[in-house]
């Protein structure tokens, strides 16, 4: 893939390195001469000391044959113009991606024809929100400091990987997690190894403090793979 990266700050620098490492062809545009000189020490002739928000330099960089143009300068207005120019100049409609610093600009950009934006603020916020949501799934009932154990209640959501599985096949003890009871509705069920977990169940378990996070990830988070140690 041929990628034009506009903006040689921290994001542009690391992005360029990664893209090269993955075997892509790149041109890195940075208009600040001092900054560009530093980048050239690593990327050599791949660095173009020109303003990527000027159409003629974007053409010079090869926008007409680019597969992707990534605008990652620190100024949203520059990133907007880079993407709009790409839409105009690219012959085969290269994909363009804009970094936005002000998350409110995602909607503004969309209305101005730039659909793909990435906001660090939004990304971090979404992760925080996820944590807050997960916190609601875990209730720390009691801590037994001396034995290094904690009594924890986990709520099982529909997207949890434990739904539909027999308790015996979950291997909870390998997460330092000893199940005491399964609360279903108003009923407390004996944790028989054949019992199948349903969504909405509350798993009450004695968990070793040092492996509590792995146990939480396993029961609560559907996507992330937990490495077995």
């Amino acid at each position, binding site marked *: 893939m041929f990628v034009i990266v506009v903006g040689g700050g921290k994001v542009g620098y690391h992005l360029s390195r990664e893209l090269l490492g993955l075997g892509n062809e790149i041109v890195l545009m940075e208009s600040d001469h001092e900054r560009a000189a530093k980048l050239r020490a690593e990327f050599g002739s791949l660095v173009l000391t020109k303003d990527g*928000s*000027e*159409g*003629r330099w974007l053409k010079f960089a090869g926008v007409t044959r680019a597969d992707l143009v990534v605008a990652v300068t620190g*100024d*949203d*207005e*520059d990133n*907007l*113009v880079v993407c*709009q*120019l790409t839409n*105009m100049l690219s012959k085969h409609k290269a994909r363009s991606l804009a970094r936005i610093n*002000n998350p*409110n*600009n995602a909607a*503004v950009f969309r*209305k*101005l024809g730039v659909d793909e934006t990435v906001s660090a603020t939004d990304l971090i916020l979404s992760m925080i929100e996820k944590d807050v949501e997960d916190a609601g799934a875990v209730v720390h009932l009691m801590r037994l400091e001396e034995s290094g154990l904690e009594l924890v209640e986990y709520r099982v959501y529909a997207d949890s990987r434990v739904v539909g599985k027999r308790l015996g096949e979950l291997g909870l003890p390998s997460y330092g997690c000893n199940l005491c009871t399964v609360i279903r509705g108003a009923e407390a069920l004996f944790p028989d190894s054949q019992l199948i977990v349903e969504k909405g169940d509350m798993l009450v378990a004695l968990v070793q403090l040092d492996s509590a996070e792995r146990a939480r990830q396993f029961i609560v988070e559907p996507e992330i793979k937990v490495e077995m140690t």
Partner: protein
Amino acid sequence: MSDNSGEYVIVVGCGRVGAELATTLSAEGQSVVVIDREMDAFERLGEAFTGATIFGNAMDEEVLVSAGINHADAVVTATQGDNTNIMIGQMAKTLFGVKRVVVRCYDPVRSDTYAALGLKTVCPTRIGAQIMRDSLLESADKCS
């Protein structure tokens, strides 16, 4: 020329040009609001200016709304950055439906590109160069 007095005009950027324009429009009887993100910039406004000033970043929709963009007749962008002017000009036109938008763009190529997209751009570089060329020829005529 039609009589445009009594119109509601927002001028973004209170540099030399922005301040001069805002003062002129205000003296001509138009309602003018000037936006700048530097407080000191408003000192450039002339005595004839009777409009309002808003301290803030005009790329922020809330700032534009507080400037009354929803009932503005016209918006002029004259900040130092071409891309800033282009972005705010497009916001005024596309997001808020302002009928008359004028965008300053120093770079002639960018000015042409966005003019082709339907944005009314003014390129001081080109205009300045033309005026200087004309007065150069004029002075040459006088000498000959």
